[in-house]
């Protein structure tokens, strides 16, 4: 299997679907305490590993 790079589109490549997105949200809430109810969910933020890392960084700031 090809390696996934940080910038690969996870949703576009079929690697995650909307159900997996729910699991990512639940994970980010419990692991990093991110409160999405403040900002809402922008699926664009969850499109690649790099974007998820950016989201975590933004929240930490």
């Amino acid at each position: 299997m090809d390696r996934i790079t940080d910038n690969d589109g996870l949703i576009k490549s079929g690697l995650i679907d909307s159900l997996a997105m729910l699991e990512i949200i639940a994970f980010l809430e419990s692991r990093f305490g991110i409160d999405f109810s403040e900002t809402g969910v922008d699926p664009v933020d969850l499109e690649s590993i790099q974007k998820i890392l950016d989201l975590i960084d933004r929240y930490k700031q």
Partner: protein
Amino acid sequence: MTLQNQVRRLTQFHEEPSLHAWSITSVGNFSLWLIVLLILFQTEYLFLVPLMVLAQIFPQHRTWIMTVGGGGLFLFKKLNQLQVTSPFWFAFDTLMIVGFLYLFYRIAKSFAKLPKIIKNHPQLFLHALLWVGIGLMFLFPAEARRDPSRMLALNLTACLVFFAFLIWRIGFMLYSGKRGTIKQQGFVEHLIYCLPYLGSSQVPYGKGLDYLNSKRSTDRLELARIQLAGLKLLLLASIWELALTVVDAAFFSTAVDAEPLFRLHHISELIAISTLHMPGPVTIWGSLIVDMVYETTQLAITGHLIIGCLRLFGFNLFRNTYKPLLARTLIDFWNRYYFYFKELLVDFFFFPVYLAVFKHHPKLRIFAATMASACLGNLYYHVLQHFDLLMITGNLPSFARFSSYLFYSFVLGLAIFVSILREQNQRGQPHVQHSIWVTLRKIAGVWIFFALLRIWDHSSSAFMQDTTFFLAIFGIRL
């Protein structure tokens, strides 16, 4: 190269690097637009071709070209539909609508300064405003709202109809305000999706500006690839159009001199007939299944034309319909059938509820969010969709129509919830390669479920009539 690879190369022609390079040569580019012109020649999207070409030549002005050209066409088309023909009232309505959108743009731009209650619930605020407007319009008698001699009432009604039509798009604008992305976005950019010549429904194909911007081509070679992907969708739309012509001739033809091979009925016709005489099981099941496939194909054609055009403008968007008839689960069908409607329900109903309630009860959390979106949100969307009828004719669509749709939405919500749970349970387990028969059985199950569910969702739905028909299929007479 195997035959399978050759077929794949042909169907995925838009991924060929050599074709990308060729399509930016003079001959290649001319050929591309010639094919686009031929496909769109007999469609309402023909007028967009010059705008697409201009957007390609002047990519730095793409936003203005789409806004002024597409927006102008949209207003012209919609106001004509509402029978606004006088230049004065045309200008009045245009100013009202654009002014209204600008007001919401300013509200979204100043999101941080809004009162806390609006900041916390911007979408509720937006919909509350619409319903206040509806309430105020009822101060005019229904006759005044359709009397050509009372132009102010008529045109204020038209503006309110537009507000209801654009409400989901304005919702996306408020989301940009909430996320703070609107600070870098101009008003004209938001008009790309707020004055939507592409697509005649309330569903914003391509969602809001944040999403569109994330899909925008950035260089000429990428634009070429996206344009070829757009061309592929237009070609697919033409093929499906041809397929429907064949299906029409074979099953649904009403021409006097062209009796179909085997007479089937569209669903509303089938239910109407059944009140007089129950057709045989082959006709009933044949009609239910073929009509479901027929309607899915119609939706695919519309979506392919709209997304195809948006790709030709340089936006690398997902298809609206992606092989739903091959889906093996209900949730998979729902994801693939009408992507941008599903996204609307997810963005405005599913996520807000999912993030707000039952955080420590995963299943209950998904249940609440699924019912809020697929059931209540779905129903509310359709109430607003009929709003133009209410404002123009003064007649509410009958309760029977909505009770039928409420049942449809309720069953759909429950079914999607169960399907989500089943998929979640299968996650993490070793992948099982099913035989072709098991796969076909799963696909058939999805087809039968949606074919039956559509009994409560057609142009002349009424709950008792639809339910009586459903029971009669299984030999139960009320």
